[in-house]
């Protein structure tokens, strides 16, 4: 958000009211796939920067995150408590119908981000209400709605084939994944996040309602992380395997870093994507029951970190640098080479912005086991050079693979932000 960038120049952190939890939530949002790696080098600097970036939201906008701007909200926005992710398939044909959908969605999304209903009620008792109503009277709860186009949107249906960014296509198959069609793909992906689940659900429901006749829901996944009420100290969130999850995210306050890591640039091959970002989504089921009967030693060797403190094995504190060369008295590496942290960190050359949530999907009716895990989401400037390159490495050797299973997958080219009067996706048409 441009507002945030402006705030970055203000060094007076004393002016930014912000919880420590906010700081760490921002710094430590991560995904099981790739995140536990980062060392602490620069992490203090990062925390300070994130504090400043995050302050923009509490200072100027209260419970609102501005919808319009240079970039879409919901990418560098500090992760809210809840997510409701919806993938749509477009059923109408022709780009006109698609444009109309994005225009209508933009107006509705901008209204909801302000805490307003999606349209004005006519008061005609013979008609259904325009808005479904369950968010009436609620504050917007940091609602963000982030739209992206799937690779399938660039087939021959909408005349967009020539617009497909050269680096944007379906994710390749990864070792060990067991993708289920009901959790994969989509012509359009919509990431809805808010600090209130009802507010988030309301947004998805109304977008789906507006789309009726033009697009249909393909899959929906809700997710959560621990809330401010549950952890007022603001510690790094833990994933459902019980480990602190995330430290290595780049600082969203650094425009330079974001331009390098997250935002597509005009010279990248698709000028309409300049200021947008490529999103990878993976529904990663955790083999909870198996994990729960693994010894603490196994669990810690799997992650390469201590469960209690989150510190790298052989170190004391969570944010201590990950030292892969440290050896125990027998000369073995303290952090196993195939541990998650060792592989995800690598040489530190691949970075991305992760924005994952835990999910719980009830039970697997076949086995009676819990269907729970991680809705991994990452944003990057280049899907293949960043997400795919790292995931290929992890899928081959990560010790964590014994306890997780990738069952869902999608990729979306998230549009640049819209300015008032424009609409999401307008640079594409």
């Amino acid at each position, binding site marked *: 958000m441009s507002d945030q960038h402006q705030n970055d120049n203000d060094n007076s952190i004393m002016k930014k009211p912000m*919880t420590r939890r906010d700081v760490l939530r921002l710094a430590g949002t991560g995904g099981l796939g790739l995140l536990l790696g980062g060392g602490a080098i620069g992490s203090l600097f990062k925390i300070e920067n994130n504090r400043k970036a995050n302050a923009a939201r509490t200072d100027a906008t209260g419970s609102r995150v501005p919808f319009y701007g240079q970039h879409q909200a919901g990418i560098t926005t500090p992760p809210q408590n809840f997510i409701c992710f919806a993938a749509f398939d477009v059923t109408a044909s022709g780009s006109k119908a698609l444009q109309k959908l994005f225009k209508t969605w933009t107006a509705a999304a901008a209204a909801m981000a302000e805490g307003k209903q999606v349209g004005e009620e006519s008061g005609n008792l013979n008609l259904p209400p325009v808005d479904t109503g369950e968010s009436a009277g609620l504050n917007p709860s940091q609602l963000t709605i982030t739209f992206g186009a799937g690779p399938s949107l660039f087939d021959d249906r909408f005349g967009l084939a020539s617009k497909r960014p050269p680096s944007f296509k379906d994710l390749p198959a990864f070792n060990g994944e067991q993708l289920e069609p009901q959790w994969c793909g989509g012509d359009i992906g919509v990431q809805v996040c808010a600090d209130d689940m009802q507010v988030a659900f309301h947004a998805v429901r109304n977008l789906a309602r507006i789309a009726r006749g033009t697009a249909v829901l393909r899959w929906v996944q809700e997710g959560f992380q621990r809330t401010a009420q549950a952890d007022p100290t603001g510690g790094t969130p833990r994933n459902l395997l019980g480990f602190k999850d995330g430290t290595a995210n780049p600082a969203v306050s650094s425009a330079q870093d974001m331009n390098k890591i997250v935002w597509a640039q005009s010279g990248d091959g698709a000028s309409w994507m300049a200021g947008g970002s490529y999103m990878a989504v993976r529904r990663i089921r955790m083999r909870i029951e198996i994990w729960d009967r693994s010894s603490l030693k196994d669990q810690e060797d799997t992650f390469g970190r201590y469960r209690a403190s989150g510190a790298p094995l052989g170190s004391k504190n*969570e944010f201590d640098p990950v030292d892969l060369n440290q050896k125990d008295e027998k000369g073995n590496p303290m952090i196993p080479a195939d541990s998650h942290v060792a592989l995800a960190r690598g040489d530190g050359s691949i970075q991305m912005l992760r924005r994952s949530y835990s999910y719980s999907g009830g039970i697997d009716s076949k086995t009676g086991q819990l269907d729970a895990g991680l809705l991994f989401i990452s944003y990057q400037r280049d899907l293949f050079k960043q997400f795919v390159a790292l995931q290929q490495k992890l899928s081959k050797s990560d010790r964590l693979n014994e306890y997780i299973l990738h069952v869902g997958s999608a990729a979306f080219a998230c549009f640049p932000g819209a300015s008032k009067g424009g609409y999401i996706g307008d640079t594409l048409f």
Partner: protein
Amino acid sequence: MKYKVILPTGMLVASLIFSGCGQKENAEAEQTPPAAPAAADTSNASSADFSAAVEQYRTFAVEQCDLFVKETEKFTNAVKAGKLDEAKKLYAPARAYYERIEPVAEALGDLDPDIDARVNDVDAADWRGFHRIEKALWEDNTTAGQEGFADQLLKDAQLLRAKIETIDIDASLMVTGAVELLNEVSSSKVTGEEELYSHTDLYDFAANVEGADKIYEILKADLAKKDPDLEKEIGERFAALKQELDAFKKGDGYVDYTELKEDQIRKLSQNLDALAEPLSNMGKILGV
């Protein structure tokens, strides 16, 4: 929980202070009142004259009801004569006349459950009508013991025909009736729950849609005056749904519900929702 980040002292102090401020910030929820609706308009059909439309629909309903009685009689005769195959053949087509005007029948109180209740809709002792006989024909594969239910069904159908003359139809009933017909499809036909034993759900599906389409056809000129885009949209979506249904035609009727694949059912359901959404705004002709 112990906080383990080592922060420079100044920063740590700062963040402790912020911690407090932040809590306060977070607690200050902004309240945005819901958009106040414009002055409520409760006017019904008074603002326009729908008497011609209402008469047209009444004629249609009576016609359908006449045919319903006639075809039901053929069906009940076959049941009573012990002609199992013939009864099975006549079952779904006879019901279609009823399904086209279901909201009208529902407005007549007890008649709908008497004619159309499914197995758990009413107390077991009161269960009669089409679905009672359906169970015997398909599940028990016999007409034996159904004679009484057949006689009662015909009497109930005739009673419906007699009462339909007296029903007070207005434009509001038509508008809500059209949506109700599609809601019927959405809640029981598209799921295969309506015809549990015969699996002739698509006959009912098509008949409900035809009934809604009839109402739209009658009101479409009025709607076009009020909102031409909506009128066009509804027309297009009726066409799309009917085209979708046509793919499942077999002989004079439709394929067995059990032959549908999951993705075909989903697509039918989505096309139905795509139609029902704009159709639910047809009430625009009634005011404002």
